[in-house]
């Protein structure tokens, strides 16, 4: 983790030269995992997530089956080489928590009751981390699920917002994340305007939080446009 005492915002410009309400460069590619039912690679600046979705498919062990609904299983995993200092491979407290919050943020969007006794599996691999990895994963997961043909109420769009050097900013990168006064992970159903994930770390006043939520909503709508564009593009070229 890189801690710095330097100012991260100078003359309204952030460390990577962005304005306060400017997103990093976002790239989305679909169908990159051949054997998956749906897959996507999403990058927000230097953060890259590879996501694969499978299902609905048979669920074993059988005691996990629910007779009236299907279940969603999510796995968030960070590659050892994704960060500056080698991350110990395998699950950790952090990845277990993130797997859970990602599952909770996707669940409201999926018609799980259409698949009793079955499961939908989502695997999120962070191959390069530079802040906001969970929201990058959620954006990719929603693309992968849509491509897998899973019935959904809406796509799920996520972004991070926060407070850096006393200023409210969107889409925090790694160094901002580590030195922020507060950061908020946010996911929503853009067409329904419903929030499915809201996590906060740090200190914010109520007014600041409300302001950040509005900024996050606007940002999500921008990201949603990119998501719809990439999904449509797949069926444009023959």
């Amino acid at each position: 983790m890189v801690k710095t005492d330097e100012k991260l915002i100078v003359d309204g410009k952030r460390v990577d030269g962005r304005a306060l309400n400017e997103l990093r460069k976002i790239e989305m590619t679909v169908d990159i995992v051949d054997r998956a039912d749906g897959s996507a690679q999403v990058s927000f600046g230097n953060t890259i997530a590879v996501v694969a979705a499978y299902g609905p498919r048979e669920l074993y062990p059988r005691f996990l089956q629910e007779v009236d609904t299907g279940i969603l299983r999510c796995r968030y995993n960070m590659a050892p080489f994704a960060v500056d200092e080698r991350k110990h491979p395998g699950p950790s407290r952090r990845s277990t928590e993130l797997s859970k919050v990602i599952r909770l943020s996707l669940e409201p969007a999926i018609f799980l009751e259409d698949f009793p006794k079955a499961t939908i599996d989502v695997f999120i691999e962070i191959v390069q981390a530079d802040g906001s990895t969970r929201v990058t994963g959620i954006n990719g997961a929603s693309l992968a699920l849509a491509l897998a043909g899973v019935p959904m109420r809406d796509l799920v769009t996520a972004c991070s917002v926060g407070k850096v050097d006393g200023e409210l900013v969107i889409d925090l990168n790694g160094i901002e994340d580590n030195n922020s006064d507060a950061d908020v992970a946010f996911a929503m159903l853009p067409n329904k305007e419903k929030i499915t994930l809201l996590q906060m770390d740090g200190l914010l006043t109520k007014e600041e939080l409300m302001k950040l939520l509005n900024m996050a909503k606007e940002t999500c709508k921008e990201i949603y446009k990119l998501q719809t564009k990439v999904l449509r593009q797949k069926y444009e070229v023959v």
Partner: protein
Amino acid sequence: MKEQKKSGSDTNRNVGKVRDIVLPGEFIDEKKGRRVGKGAYFEGDKVFAKVLGIPIVRENQISVIPLSGAYIPSINDTIIGIISQVEISGWLVDINSPYIAFLPIADAVDEFVDVARTDISRFYDVGDVIFCKVSKVTKDKTVRVSMRGHGTRKLYGGIIIKITPSKIPRIIGKGGSMINMIKRKTKCVIYTGQNGVIWIRGVDKAKAIKAILTIEKESHTVGLTEKIEKMLSEGD
């Protein structure tokens, strides 16, 4: 299946043109008392897409044909299954779905069978391919298939390919035009199951498979029959 046929008959055929698609959560149309079919859901008086697919808006129904997704069995579907296990009084059948189907002996064999004395694998054994019909699906998706009904049979030899189940109507074409053309041009016997499993036996299997996979890949475009006809005629 009918919906697909209807939309396949666009009058101003523009070969290679892509049909409009909707994404999950996108608004399709006002409900106006119409029925909301598969692939769509409604909130209040608005109908939204549930899956990524082609919207079908008609006088009495709004639905979406998905472009991908697993097969969810429904009653009276004709499907191709593979026997995966032999039980005491029936068989478990893999139907290319999240759910396994059961074929009871009463729905499979005409003669009287004393299950206590007979090893029923002499009728159907593991790995056998059957063309059968879904006879019952319960709310929690317990599936039963039957060998009674028109056209059901055991399929010998041949090879199996799997495609996206929602694209089967496109493979069959309007009134069977597409599949009949493939059968004629490749001299193959082809069975299509609504679960996305296709069984092929015949002379030019490779060509038939190539045609089917092309249809699957380009099912959302207009004027596909002409393209496939041209493709199959090459090298004649």
